[in-house]
């Protein structure tokens, strides 16, 4: 009967037609007001339609009616509603209430377990696992219990119960071993985790020393082989660690095993009684490395291990026993310089010892080899790659030696450009040529930032960066697959305020799904800053969709781990879930999406409704919520040739056009919508509170917000203050109004003076965009005042109307100027003939042999600027009061 009544609602939900489903719910509830099944499903529908408060109220009222919980329809509807609302405790309460009617229902206990498991509610998970293992003899429930006990103990702050839980878990596993029920490496990993967390390393070693079925499991699992060596080190059985490492390395070439082998030997050397014993230990490991270096497929690992051993011995103060790591580094380079990975392999060992004498040694070695490598680069791919690796080392050594002379960075740039972009190998898309073009671009960018670091030299900086951009684009034209060239091209286009081309290149990288979290920062938000907010909004919505889908699907993946018995994934999946759900980029993407919606023009009614209905409570942030955020943004992908601890030579940092949004950005742009919400709702007290918070944020940013974001946020503070002032008819608003208008006016293009290429490519478009955004919010202020204080609204409206006219005129003039002049100005100013210029070689190269690409870059810049200005003009046209 109940099922038949609910069928039309289920059918509508399956379509999915939520609106119709809600109508059917209402119809049924009109006939049967106490139909708990319909109420439960209605709660779910409300939760899914963005009405969480109503959903929660209705859901809780059904949950408080115990008799209702006997129905499967109520259980289903209500659990779905609470899941959609992100209320796992209430979801578990639904199942618990249902269990009072059928206490032995395995599926209900399983639901409790899974709900707890996917929400890291370890205590509830543990209790559900106990019930399941009591109810059923299935072995999997014993493992669910063991994993739950382990997780609960690991995350517990209770020093008394945690050891008891772990002991119980250990006993359960021991029984499983005795009964022959430990049958997979996944279960073995759980066993080892349980022992490891109790520091029972001796016992772990015994388990791993087993000669029976467990031994076979370990030998088939590469991770466990390495873990076993590590374990011997943990218990101080260095001899055993060495034997296990040797056995492992005889059959495979695994870097983690090499490292552990070295660690065990270095420790024993430190403990050895005399020099003879020390020498003997080093002789043993060196001889093994020598032997493996002669085995096909193992040479690279063994040779690099020799470098690692020497470096580690020097670090531990036993440098006298081994040879110089530096000599071994150059032996390694001689042998493997034809491999692209060679530089990445060896860089950490060069960086590890930065004493001047060591760097001079490297420099001397480099100078001996570099000319020959350069001369023979055209002979073969291998020879070219060898030159590339040496050029990367040249770059690294310059940075490590603290080179700040831009001329030194530009020395020898021409051969790099010719080989990377102008050689027959480059036309054949040889990867080493793209690498060389990349190195050349890095040198130009580095030199540019060193040469023109002062504020009054930024015009020249832009000119130099434009040339670097031409080099990058030439590389991309030759080899479309070189993502490093594209990443820096995106950075430089944005630096020069050219959004459109940056976005086109970003599109070719096909960044999607989880990459939106790690790489989305490259482009998201930049469109709004450069007048292209519609394109930016699309990217933001892609991001928001990714995060929403992730949040709804990830719990199922955690359930699947238990279902499949692949328990080693549990902790990793929980960490991954937490990293994405509490990600800095997620917060930024949401803030940008909301910011874009605020920027979108709507009429008075739409604007007021938008701010009134905005769910501002969910975007509140505290120190605690901010500190829980994870920064997953992947900057390692930028292929830095220098170590991360050298800020002056860190091109990833230097090429950021504006600071990468962080906590201050999140906090500020969570407060802006709150300010607007309370303003529109005429809640003066809350508005004042939020304005104080916003002032505190913007006063203490320490350059973590862009200049335009600061300008905009300060403008919003003025908007809020003006509203408060206007709320009392006794107050005058003229001063505040003129201050706001002046902020906008100052950031409009000047009608009197000709704009310059530099002002356009630096702050011109950005300022204009911030001014347009602030104007949109002022319109919202005017609409809000219209409902409450008409005279003030009229005054604001009149002023805005006048301002809009001025803006339209000046932006229109700017549009005409950009259209008519910028191309010629780029050619005249950024590609000008200047013999003193340290970038003269690059200039000659890009306007000579790369003329076509340079012309394309010029066009890309001018059309990008024009697009931004046209968009802004259209925004001002739409923003009518």
């Amino acid at each position: 009967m109940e099922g038949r009544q609910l069928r039309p609602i289920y059918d509508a939900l399956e379509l999915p037609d939520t609106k119709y489903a809600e109508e059917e719910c209402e119809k049924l509830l009109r006939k049967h007001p106490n139909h708990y099944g319909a109420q439960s499903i209605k709660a779910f529908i409300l939760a899914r339609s963005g009405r969480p408060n109503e959903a929660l109220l209705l859901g809780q009222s059904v949950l408080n009616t115990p008799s209702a919980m006997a129905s499967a329809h109520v259980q289903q509807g209500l659990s779905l509603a609470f899941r959609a609302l992100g209320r796992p405790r209430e979801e578990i309460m639904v199942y618990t209430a249902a269990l009072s009617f059928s206490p032995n229902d395995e599926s209900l206990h399983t639901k409790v377990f899974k709900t707890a498991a996917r929400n890291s509610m370890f205590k509830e998970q543990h209790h559900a696992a106990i019930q399941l293992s009591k109810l059923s003899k299935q072995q999997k429930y014993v493992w669910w219990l063991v994993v739950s006990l382990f997780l609960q103990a690991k995350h517990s702050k209770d020093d008394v119960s945690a050891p008891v839980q772990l002991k119980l878990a250990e006993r359960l596993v021991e029984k499983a071993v005795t009964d022959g029920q430990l049958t997979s490496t996944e279960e073995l990993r759980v066993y080892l985790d349980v022992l490891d967390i109790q520091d029972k390393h001796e016992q772990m070693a015994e388990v791993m020393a087993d000669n029976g079925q467990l031994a076979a499991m370990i030998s088939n699992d590469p991770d466990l082989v390495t873990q076993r060596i590590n374990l011997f080190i943990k218990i101080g059985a260095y001899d055993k660690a060495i034997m296990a490492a040797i056995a492992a390395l005889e059959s495979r070439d695994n870097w983690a095993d090499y490292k552990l082998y070295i660690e065990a030997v270095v420790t024993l050397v430190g403990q050895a009684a005399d020099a003879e014993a020390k020498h003997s230990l080093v002789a043993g490991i060196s001889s093994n490395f020598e032997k493996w270096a002669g085995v096909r497929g193992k040479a690279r690992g063994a040779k690099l291990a020799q470098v690692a051993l020497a470096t580690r011995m020097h670090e531990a103060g036993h440098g006298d026993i081994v040879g110089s790591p530096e000599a071994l580094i150059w032996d390694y380079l001689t042998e493997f310089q034809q491999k692209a990975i060679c530089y990445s392999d060896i860089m950490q060992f060069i960086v590890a010892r930065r004493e001047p004498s060591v760097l001079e040694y490297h420099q001397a070695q480099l100078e001996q080899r570099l000319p020959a490598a350069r001369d023979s680069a055209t002979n073969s791919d291998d020879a070219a790659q060898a030159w590339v690796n040496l050029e990367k080392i040249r770059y690294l050594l310059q940075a490590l030696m603290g080179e700040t002379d831009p001329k030194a960075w530009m020395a020898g740039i021409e051969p790099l450009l010719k080989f990377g972009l102008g050689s027959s190998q480059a036309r054949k898309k040889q990867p080493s040529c793209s690498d060389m073009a990349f190195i050349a671009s890095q040198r130009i960018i580095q030199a540019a930032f060193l040469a023109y670091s002062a504020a009054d030299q930024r015009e020249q900086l832009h000119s130099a960066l434009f040339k670097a951009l031409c080099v990058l684009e030439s590389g991309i034209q030759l080899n479309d697959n070189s993502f490093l060239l594209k990443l820096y091209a995106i950075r430089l286009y944005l630096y020069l305020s050219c959004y459109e081309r940056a976005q086109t290149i970003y599109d070719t990288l096909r960044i999607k799904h989880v990459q939106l979290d790690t790489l989305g920062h490259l482009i998201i938000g930049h469109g709004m800053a450069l007048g292209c907010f519609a394109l930016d909004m699309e990217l933001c919505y892609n991001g928001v969709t990714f995060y929403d889908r992730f949040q709804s699907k990830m719990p199922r993946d955690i359930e699947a781990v238990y279902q499949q018995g692949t328990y080693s994934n549990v902790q990793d999946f929980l960490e991954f879930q937490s990293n994405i759900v509490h990600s800095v980029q997620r917060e930024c993407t949401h803030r940008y999406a909301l910011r874009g919606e605020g920027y979108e023009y709507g009429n008075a009614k739409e604007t007021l409704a938008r701010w009134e209905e905005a769910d501002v409570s969910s975007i509140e942030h505290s120190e605690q919520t901010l500190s829980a955020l994870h920064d997953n943004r992947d900057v390692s992908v930028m292929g830095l040739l220098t170590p991360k601890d050298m800020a002056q030579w860190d091109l990833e940092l230097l090429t950021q056009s504006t600071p990468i949004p962080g906590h201050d950005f999140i906090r500020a742009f969570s407060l802006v919508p709150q300010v607007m919400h309370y303003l529109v709702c005429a809640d003066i007290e809350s508005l004042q509170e939020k304005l104080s918070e916003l002032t505190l944020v913007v006063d203490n940013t320490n350059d973590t917000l862009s200049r335009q974001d600061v300008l905009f946020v300060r403008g919003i503070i003025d908007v809020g203050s003006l509203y408060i002032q206007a709320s009392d008819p006794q107050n005058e608003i003229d001063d505040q109004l003129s201050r706001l208008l002046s902020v906008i006016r100052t950031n409009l293009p000047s009608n009197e003076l000709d704009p310059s290429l530099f002002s356009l490519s630096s702050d011109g478009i950005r300022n204009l965009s911030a001014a347009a955004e602030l104007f949109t919010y002022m319109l919202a202020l005017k609409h809000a005042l219209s409902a409450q204080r008409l005279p003030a609204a009229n005054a604001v409206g009149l002023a805005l109307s006048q301002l809009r006219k001025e803006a339209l005129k000046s932006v229109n003039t700017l549009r005409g100027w950009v259209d008519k002049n910028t191309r010629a100005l780029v050619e005249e100013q950024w590609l000008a003939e200047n013999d003193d210029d340290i970038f003269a070689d690059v200039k000659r190269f890009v306007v000579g042999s790369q003329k076509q690409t340079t012309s394309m870059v010029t066009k890309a810049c001018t059309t990008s600027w024009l697009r931004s200005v046209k968009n802004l003009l259209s925004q001002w046209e739409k923003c009518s009061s």
Partner: protein
Amino acid sequence: MSTIRRFRAMDLLHFNNVNLDRYTETYDSQFYLSYMSNWPDLFTVAESPAQKLMGYSMGKVEGTGELWHGHVTALTVAPECRRLGLARGLMRGLEDASEKIHDCYFVDLFVRPSNTVAIQMYEHLGYILYRRVIDYYQGDGVMPTEYAHDMRKALPRDKHKKSIVPVKHAVNVEDTFF
């Protein structure tokens, strides 16, 4: 030389230097997670001494009877880590697991015909062109729509090499489902 280990979910936050390659598809996170849950021993990553991801292989087992086989869903190596034999090492690992852990008859994979470097490597590893699959790869504005080469290699369990008798005519995508 690298550290070969199981792929972990957290690696998804660091695999861009591998996945930005144009031939490497980035799937929905749930796709990777389902492989980790279902076939953890067939999802392996190589990590460099500098702790950067170098490449990974992702596989599954499926089919019934004599069609029980290992499938290579993805095999990719970062551009700077090529010409080191890494892809061969990862493929051998996946073949070993298909043979020794899952007792399969054969291993199969799909590859774009335009990816000639990969095809050559698979041929060197003993894979043959078993059949062509019409419009298996759909264009996305950057990569074109292409048919796929369905390549196979018989494992010792397939004593009579029945699994690798080539199919002459091209098949539709739905004919490749197991």
